[in-house]
């Protein structure tokens, strides 16, 4: 990969080898910098990213320009690259991940020798592809720091290499010259200042997704339909799903932030299906109110904002009343889930009144005990686990505890899971590991095998404070759990082990810095990550409404803007007319103009005729306006010095000041006549 040392030494002695070495180091350094987010975001696996980083580090530390890998070695490496891409998952996780793997591996092969001018462009293109893939799959707030750092490095590298190239071509300069820090800092600051409003103005025609899809794997997040065979690898996404605000100043128990979006009853071969049979159409009342149950004795209230387009209403288990923003018809299925008749745009809010002590669902029916025949083997297993349980509640508790302790949690779908085997049976008897949907599915079916009615619910659990009194619920908080009918009522069970249950962060226990950081993250999530067309339209609407609400203020505002623009234009014009120091020709013009102005004034007052020299102008001014003598003398002398002696020009401001002083000292034209 690094070529022969003899050849490298010869190359190092060649003219321009210093430039090549420096270019090589910069390219390798940029490669290291750009590869940073790749493994963190999951678009490239750690082994591949580490391999790339190792090659980049080796090239960066090399003391001589490296030769490209010989063609025959590249040909040998090509199948190896393909094998690594396939081993890292191939096309199983979408197209982006293998493409990113391919780009990274090809970049690693082409990095040695990339400093050669003929190869730099192609390598830079590869590097750009790698960088874009890494940035596109990043969702962390640190991107705000990372992007300016990358821009600084790019500006520094490009400017430095440009200087080296110029010095090599033209001579002059010094090889040690670096672009000034002020230039780099100013470039980054201006770029960021321009980028901020541009980011807000660029049209969003698609709903934003924050992460996940670009990572090439499936994403954690709410799904109406649970399919145990298809989830594959799961990436934890920080995309915002909901924002929940409870009644003023209330710190909820973590369990209150369990919001169900779908309740499933029918299980077939790894798929929990939601039938449309028996659905009720509900039309909210005039205030958008939708009654779901009896009013509780001590009601609690929370407000939910759904951040992404959705047709689901996420409700706590004891929801009795929902206040919706508009009169959209809803479907309520026999399992108790609410679904809007059309997809609602992200950002809609609704309020829920609920009873935290109850789980309100339609009563159990035969469907809650349905079990596929091929899962008969679950009965003895469930009986064994629940042996000694005195009642249904105890049995359910035993099953919950057993699943939590005897099974492992993982986000990876095991590659050895056979498609011919039922996923729940495989999970219980062979795999012994899986994600929350496996645990919940297994518990529902085990409960049903004991004739306990049970359903699977999916939704969100937990969240973190947003620093502004609410809780942010992210895609990573998506979860599945169980509702079982025990002791004449529905009750929630969560068989997933603790390390697989989304966490609830209490605002009360957080230190102030953590709250501040949460506010930063909240801002980032709200105004960058999930910024959408809806936000753009909403901002425009608010601006319009504010403007329309007070036309006088609008008129004033517009007048202010017009005045500001006029002032800006005038200021800019004056600024542009300003004569920079050292521009001899331009300053000469202004001294000529100044003397000519004196001449015209003298002509207008009939002090002189046409065709006079500057000295004659000076003479007549001295005669007719003695108090201006010094200024006139200075102007004429300066004009002559600049024009004929090659003296350094004065500042334009000084010339103008003297001219103004001279003209002000003139008597009125009539009086002089």
């Amino acid at each position: 990969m690094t070529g022969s040392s003899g050849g490298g030494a010869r190359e190092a002695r060649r003219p321009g080898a210093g430039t090549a070495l420096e270019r090589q180091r910069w390219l390798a350094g940029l490669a290291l910098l750009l590869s940073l987010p790749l493994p963190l975001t999951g678009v490239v696996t750690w082994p591949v990213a580490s391999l790339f980083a190792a090659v980049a580090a080796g090239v960066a530390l090399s003391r001589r320009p490296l030769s490209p890998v010989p063609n025959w070695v590249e040909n040998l490496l090509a199948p190896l690259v393909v094998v690594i891409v396939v081993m890292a998952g191939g096309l199983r996780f979408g197209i982006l991940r293998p493409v990113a793997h391919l780009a990274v591996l090809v970049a690693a092969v082409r990095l040695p020798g990339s400093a050669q001018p003929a190869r730099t462009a192609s390598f830079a293109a590869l590097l750009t592809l790698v960088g874009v893939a890494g940035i596109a799959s990043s969702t962390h707030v640190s991107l705000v720091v990372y992007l300016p750092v990358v821009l600084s490095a790019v500006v520094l590298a490009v400017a430095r290499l440009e200087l080296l190239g110029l010095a090599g071509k033209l001579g002059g300069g010094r090889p040690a010259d670096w672009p000034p820090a002020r230039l780099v800092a100013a470039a980054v600051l201006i770029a960021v200042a321009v980028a901020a409003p541009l980011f807000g103005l660029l049209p969003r025609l698609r709903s934003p997704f924050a992460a996940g899809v670009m990572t090439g794997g499936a994403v954690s997040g709410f799904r109406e339909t649970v399919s145990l065979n298809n989830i594959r690898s799961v990436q934890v996404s920080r995309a915002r799903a909901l924002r929940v605000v409870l009644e003023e100043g209330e710190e909820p128990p973590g369990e209150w932030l369990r919001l169900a979006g779908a309740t499933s009853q029918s299980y077939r071969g790894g798929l929990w299906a939601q039938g449309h049979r028996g659905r009720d159409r509900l039309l909210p009342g005039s205030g958008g109110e939708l009654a779901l149950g009896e009013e509780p004795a001590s009601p609690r209230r929370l407000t939910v904002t759904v951040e992404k387009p959705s047709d689901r209403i996420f409700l706590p288990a004891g929801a009795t009343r929902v206040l919706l923003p508009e009169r959209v018809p809803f479907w309520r299925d026999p399992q108790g889930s609410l679904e809007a008749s059309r997809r609602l745009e992200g950002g809609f809010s609704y309020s829920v009144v609920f009873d935290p002590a109850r789980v309100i669902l339609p009563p159990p029916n035969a469907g809650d005990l349905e079990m596929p025949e091929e899962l008969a083997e679950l009965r003895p297993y469930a009986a064994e686990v629940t042996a000694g349980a005195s009642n249904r509640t105890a049995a359910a508790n035993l099953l919950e505890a057993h699943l939590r302790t005897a099974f492992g949690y993982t986000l990876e779908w095991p590659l050895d899971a056979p498609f011919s085997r039922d996923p729940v049976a495989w999970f219980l008897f062979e795999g012994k590991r899986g994600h929350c949907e496996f645990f919940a599915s297994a518990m529902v079916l085990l409960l049903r095998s004991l004739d306990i009615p049970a359903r699977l619910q999916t939704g969100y659990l937990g969240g973190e404070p947003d620093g502004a009194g609410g809780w942010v619920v992210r895609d990573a908080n998506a979860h599945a759990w169980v509702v079982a009918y025990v002791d004449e009522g529905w009750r929630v069970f969560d068989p997933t082990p603790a390390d697989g249950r989304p966490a609830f962060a209490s605002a009360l226990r957080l230190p102030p810095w953590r709250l501040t950081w949460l506010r930063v993250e909240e801002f980032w999530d709200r105004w960058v990550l999930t910024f959408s067309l809806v936000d753009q339209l909403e901002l425009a609407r608010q601006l319009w409404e504010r403007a329309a609400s007070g036309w006088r203020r609008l008129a004033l505002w517009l007048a202010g803007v017009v005045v500001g623009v006029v002032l800006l234009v005038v200021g800019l014009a004056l600024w542009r007319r300003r004569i920079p120091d050292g521009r001899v020709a331009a300053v000469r013009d202004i001294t000529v103009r100044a003397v000519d102005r004196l001449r015209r004034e003298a002509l207008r007052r009939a002090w002189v005729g046409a065709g006079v020299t500057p000295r004659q102008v000076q003479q007549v001014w001295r005669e007719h306006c003695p108090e201006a003598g010094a200024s006139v003398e200075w102007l004429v002398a300066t004009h002559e010095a600049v024009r004929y002696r090659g003296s350094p020009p004065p500042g334009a401001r000084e010339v103008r000041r003297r001219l103004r002083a001279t003209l002000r000292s003139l008597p009125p034209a009539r009086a002089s006549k």
Partner: protein
Amino acid sequence: MSGRTSRFSLAFPGFSLTPRRALWVFVLATPALAAAALNTGNNALYLLLSLAMGAFVASGSLSRHTLRHLSARLVPPAEAFAGAPTPLAIQVRNSSPWLPATGVVCRLQGLPGEALIPPVPARGVATVTLTTAFPRRGRHPLPAVRIEVRLPLPFFLKAVVVRQAGELLVYPRRVAGPAARWATLGEREMQGMGPTAVRGAEVQQLREFRPGDDRRDVHWKQTARQQRPIVMERRERRRPSRFLVLDRELPRRNDATLLARFEDLVSEVATAALDALRRGEAVGLVLGGSVVPPGVGVAHTRGLLERLALVEAVGPGEDPLPPLAATGAVYRLAEAR
């Protein structure tokens, strides 16, 4: 990284823009990035796109700022010969109050010569010397200086042309020619130039001052001692009569070949004069009807070179030579038949 520049450039009031390869890469890559952002709705891509466009704006405004605050002043050399490498000093001034100028290249307009200017600090001056060559003798306006700025990002090469006040007299080309041809003038022509004898250095005797004596010959010590003006009487020397004679008359006017050959003649005369003057020999010059008496010294050398730098060919009979003692030693063009 992207050093190549394209051939066409755009002229704006006060400066010109020449796109570079990085611009085309940017022009192609940015829409692709925009399409990706638009198609996926990925806000990280929007962020990257915004920053890329911001970097473009930043580069443009900073390079324009740098260019607007740069000025160049050419310092002409003490002497310049046509065709010979001539060092020219360029003073580059940066009037920006805060931004140093780096990667600035200065080129002479219409002449060879370019140089990378060392970093010019804010409100500072940097001087660099570049080597150029003037193709012809004669009076040349000082060449304009083209200031080029490329940084911080090389999307464009931005340039401004700063015109220079003043002009430069370029002496004739120095050539390795044949031996000099010397001529002498007749007695009458020499008399027209004033006394044929010059004041010698050797003192012959001391005598009392007479009206008409040169005051430089007053012997001040003896004058003080004797209380009357005493002068030194010097032995006179004959004025040397060695001339280089250039006939300005061409057989035909406005003939390019003859004019080119005339330039060669001027170069030969100038070279011969310089060689002799450097050896300390007195040299006179006859250019058509005008005669410069023989002399030595820096001022005389400069005078001869200036005349030779400005001499122009004329048509037949327009500027005849004075009578010469040795007519064969004239630098003259004659058509071979």
